[in-house]
């Protein structure tokens, strides 16, 4: 798989701050307890490359088991890649020394899907938000307190919330707390793992707007993991579509939605729910389910479910090609 290098000539490109090259994560499958033998590998992520630019959002879309969460975990350094590397400001983070890693870890933060389980119920809000700063920064208590209040205001809460516990907040407010905590160290990248899907519809727009405002204020980049395509369209600048551990299509958001190329992307879009009863949708209903990543199909992983399958799809792995500037797709049709 070649590395997609996004080089558009409009001169408005922002600098790349994070680049993943050919990332792979294989989980061994073992048999037996005492004399465990490795009988196979689950190829959760199998050769994924992408770039994240300063102040922009990369969306990663795919169904469960496609490897999007494992990819995010490798970006967060919570999983060691089996192969491949992640470059942050041009430096390979897995080759960096301890100080370099520590700096990387504080500049890449995360907000998770479920604000009911991602906040420690036994900590007051002020301690929750201060925790990353206490660990990473040598600040005095009044300085930390001031920063906590500033952060609470930034995410639309008030200073009296600082003394409460997480259970005293609604879902949307808790997600605001999680965002304040992620922002506390002035990160350059925030990984957002389904940040609004656990929230009520009327609250989702509040949180999405807040995230967009914070992005333009702090020039922070987001890596957004989502399955809801409309959310991705609203939030992202770039979108990578993943299927069975591989990126099958990568493009700027408008290009991807206006001109989807990969049959899987097209199927995802036709399966997405319409925003109006009169919306005309191409009806591509995929048969079957996502195959097991333990034993993915030969050739193109998507070929058993693909409506446009050809002979070569079942044995030749398609290369990633740049069809139009910045629009990358892995499919034999192109």
């Amino acid at each position, binding site marked *: 798989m070649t590395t997609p290098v996004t080089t558009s000539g409009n001169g408005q490109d922002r600098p790349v701050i994070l680049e993943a090259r050919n990332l792979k994560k294989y989980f061994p499958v073992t048999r037996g307890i005492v004399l465990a033998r490795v009988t196979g590998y689950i190829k959760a992520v199998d050769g994924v490359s992408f770039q994240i630019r300063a102040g922009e959002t990369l969306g990663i879309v795919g169904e469960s088991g496609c490897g999007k969460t494992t990819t995010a975990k490798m970006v967060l350094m919570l999983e060691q890649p089996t192969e491949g590397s992640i470059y942050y400001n041009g430096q390979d983070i897995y080759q960096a020394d301890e100080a370099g890693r520590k700096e990387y870890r504080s500049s890449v933060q995360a907000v998770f899907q479920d604000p009911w389980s991602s906040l420690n119920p036994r900590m007051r809000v002020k301690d929750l938000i201060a925790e990353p700063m206490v660990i990473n920064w040598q600040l005095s208590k009044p300085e930390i307190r001031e920063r906590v209040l500033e952060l609470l205001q930034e995410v639309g809460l008030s200073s009296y919330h600082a003394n409460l516990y997480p259970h005293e907040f609604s879902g949307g407010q808790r997600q605001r707390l999680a965002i304040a905590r992620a922002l506390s160290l002035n990160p350059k990248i925030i990984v957002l793992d389904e940040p609004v899907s656990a929230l009520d*519809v009327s609250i989702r*727009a509040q949180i999405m707007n807040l995230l*967009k405002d914070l992005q333009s204020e702090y020039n922070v980049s987001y890596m957004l993991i989502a399955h809801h395509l*409309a959310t991705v369209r*609203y939030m992202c600048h770039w979108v990578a579509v993943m299927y069975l551990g591989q990126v099958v299509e990568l493009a700027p958001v408008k290009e991807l939605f206006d001109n989807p190329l990969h049959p899987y992307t097209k199927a995802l*879009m036709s399966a*997405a729910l319409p925003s*109006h009863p009169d919306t005309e949708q191409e009806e591509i209903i*995929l048969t079957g*389910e996502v195959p097991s990543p333990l034993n993915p199909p030969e050739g193109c992983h998507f070929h058993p479910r693909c409506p446009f399958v050809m002979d070569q799809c079942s044995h030749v792995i398609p290369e990633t090609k740049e069809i139009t500037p910045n629009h990358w797709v892995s499919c034999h049709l192109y």
Partner: protein
Amino acid sequence: MATANTSEAPVLKVENLRTYFRTRWGEVKAVDGVSFELRKGETLGIVGESGSGKSVTMLSMMRLIPIPPGRIVEGTITLDGEDLLQLSESEMSKVRGSKIALIIQDPMTSLNPVFTIGNQVTEAIRIHQDIPKRSVMEKALEVLRKVNIPAAESRIRDYPHQLSGGMRQRVVGAIGISCQPLVLIADEPTTSLDVTIQAQYLKLLRDLQQESGMSLIFITHDFGIVAKMCDRVAVMYAGKIVEVGSVRDIFNKPSHPYTEALLASVPKMEEDVDRLYAIEGQPPLLHDLPVGCSFADRCPYVMDRCREEYPPEFPVDEGHYSACWRLA
């Protein structure tokens, strides 16, 4: 809430349903005066956020409200000419699963892990249908094939954990339709499924409905499901239906500020939206509802009258009603 007059009598008619719960904060009016009708072969969407009372409405229809702390204070639920609220528990268990059936959200918890698929699909058939023992299994296979379970003959001996999420939800669907119900209630049937599996499942439900002519009620928070599946929509807020109408009326001419705001706050896949409209604030607490309209505090058009008196339903169009003082 009233609906347009049609010659055909409704299959299901809910009138002035009130279900309250006693809690330590006081009485929670989870469903507070809900009325709607459902005609044969029709799909009704009940849309609302958590705490709007949509699931309690559904549980009241199935008579599955835990009593205490809950109680159905008043109302009638007329299904096929009989009031479900007047039935005894044993009479109700004959109706439940045969005339009115339910598909709930999470197929992981709605199937019993220690019984086979076959056992669970045949349960409803054994209870409700008077057919010889030998043919019960055949009937179960027939239902499983109807919901497109591949290799149903071998799957029928599997346990739930051996099936994928999409497959499990199909099994739950099979149990739901096994006795040809008049009304099938689907409570967020696809929220735990992946997008492409969701599309398969919705298509399946539509095919089954066309074949049997049953009526469907979708309980959902997702306007996308409504747009794709429903003929009519009832929008709920804080225990009341605030607007009801045909799916096109609701999408093209939302007349209640809450419906309007909800629709504007959903991002669209088909177009670029620069900034979403966000409804400020939170839904009110159900044990401490304001006097007057429950949406008043979040409403951009709020008037003095809204805080004094709850608005009655005003007709917007034929079959389209909205409870908002702006229409007075």
